[in-house]
């Protein structure tokens, strides 16, 4: 019964997301012209000002290391956390160490 309910909920969610992903009711794809300026104004700003403000010619690195560098620091921290967590959980058990 739980499984049926879960499947129905997933189906409902899928339906809603399909509505959202259809251009007439939700998000538009392949933006161009006026719509580009309406929905992607921040991207346009990065493209126009990235080279003079940051100095790099690669826009993606301009964004991830300058405009949104703090997020990159956060991602590095996520990696550090994941490694620390994995190493911590894969350490030998306490009992084994006592026997040595």
């Amino acid at each position, binding site marked *: 019964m739980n499984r049926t309910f879960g499947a129905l909920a997933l189906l409902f969610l899928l339906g809603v997301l399909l509505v959202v992903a259809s251009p007439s009711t939700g*998000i538009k794809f392949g933006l161009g012209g006026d719509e580009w300026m309406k929905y992607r104004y921040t991207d346009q*700003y990065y493209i126009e*000002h990235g080279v003079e403000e940051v100095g790099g010619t690669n826009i993606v690195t301009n964004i991830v290391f300058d*405009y*949104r560098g703090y997020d990159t620091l956060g991602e590095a921290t996520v990696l550090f956390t994941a490694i620390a*967590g994995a190493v911590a959980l894969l350490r030998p*058990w306490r009992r084994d160490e006592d026997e040595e």
Partner: protein
Amino acid sequence: MNVLPYLIIVPLFGAFALPMVGLAGKKARELWAVLITAITLGVAAELFYTVWKGGEIIVYTLGAESPLGQGVPFPIRIVWEVDLLAALFILMVAFVAFVAVLYSTEYMSHDTGLEKYYALILLLEVGMLGIAMTGDLFNFYVFMEIMSIAGYALVAFRNDTWEGIEAGIKYMFVGSIASSFILLGIVLLYGQYGTLTMAYLAKMIAENPTFTAKVALGLLIGGLLFKSGAVPVHMWLADAHPAAPSSISAMLSGLVIKIGGTYALARMAFSVFSTGIDTKTVGWIIILFACVTLIVGNAMAVIQTDMKRLFAFSSVGQIGYILLGTGIGLAAYGSDVGNIALAGAIYHTVNHAVIKALLFLVAGAVIHQLGTKNLNELSGIARKMPVTSFAFLIGAAAIIGLPPMNGFASKWLIYESSALFNPLVAVIAVIGTAFSLAAYIRVLFTFLGRPSERVMDAREPGKAMLVPMLLLVAVIIVMGLFPWFISDRIMIPAAKMLENAGAYITAVLGGA
């Protein structure tokens, strides 16, 4: 001087430096962790004082003077936005983290791999501080991931116990799904509105509320209810808290489910969405979950025989009160009732963080000294461990909401506002408290009963475990002595600031 950046710099540096400091020996890394959390607490106190005195929202842009780009009216950089609510929760996080780290120095002395433990606990703190201070939607997600991943690893930290690993796996699977819901919500919002800054997004949603925004809100609420342990999705919490080391349970129950759950929910609902959506509907949805959470969480607490599991279910029940306050705050948006309910929810968040941290530290002391958390074996601890039992008594009285303790005022605000809002909801809240009372009275009688054989050779834990507990007891009693002062001076202004989404938007956009 603006102290805001040091709130992230200090604990992050502490965490990254720990593998190297750890080389200097066992004492050095404990001292390092305590020192780092103490400095963070100092910075947090300074920040809270500044925001509270100044009474305005602090905005900090990373990398430039102004969040806005040259000649354009929209923000292009990541901003931090700290209002009174965020500052209050930052102080709460820094305090409980400091207490938990101090407690760990003795409590974790039998465990191995401690340099990773302290690194992870500092990262957990970084994640929570980042969530509280950020004003950027994707940045919020990044810090929620830091907090969650550190949380998964710490729950399963005792890798030689089967329950630790089981709870860790369960928490990780469920938590990852919840995180991806939140990410999906953020993706939809970006696709529709083209910005990630919360304040500008709020403005865009207000101008053009679309179906996409509603779906995104639904996904965000779903994910955040997962993280806060509301009832249909509370099962990870009931396993994670008993299995984690007690210092971690204290942080999980006191902080993680609130910062990553109810705080983020309130921030999204009030600051980002309240201008564009029907707050009444969203409020009622949250109230519905809150009522179920109240009843189920507290009722399940009554029948537990495992002490930490009991506290875990009680945490679920208390989350119900916080959600109830938030929900009424949304449903009665802008009225006095809504304001008081929201103030009650904020107050209860802080109170419950302190109380539940104390209760889990008490449970940790009992486990550390006796090696069992089964309530049936623990009768008569009060004779052998009087200080610990006294701390439990204070914590239990506070969580039920007896008048001299801090829990009274916050619950009173929630009862009062829910009774004014809808009497039926108030009745449910009172039933929840009745269950909670039954659960804690039962534990109390166990503590005060005739000493069982197992308890006969128990002793009090050492200073490093008693001092954190007594620190929390002192906070509970002091906060309990000035309940209305605190609620008038801090909680109601914080609630007002949260409700005022316009001020949140203009703080970043500079009146634009």
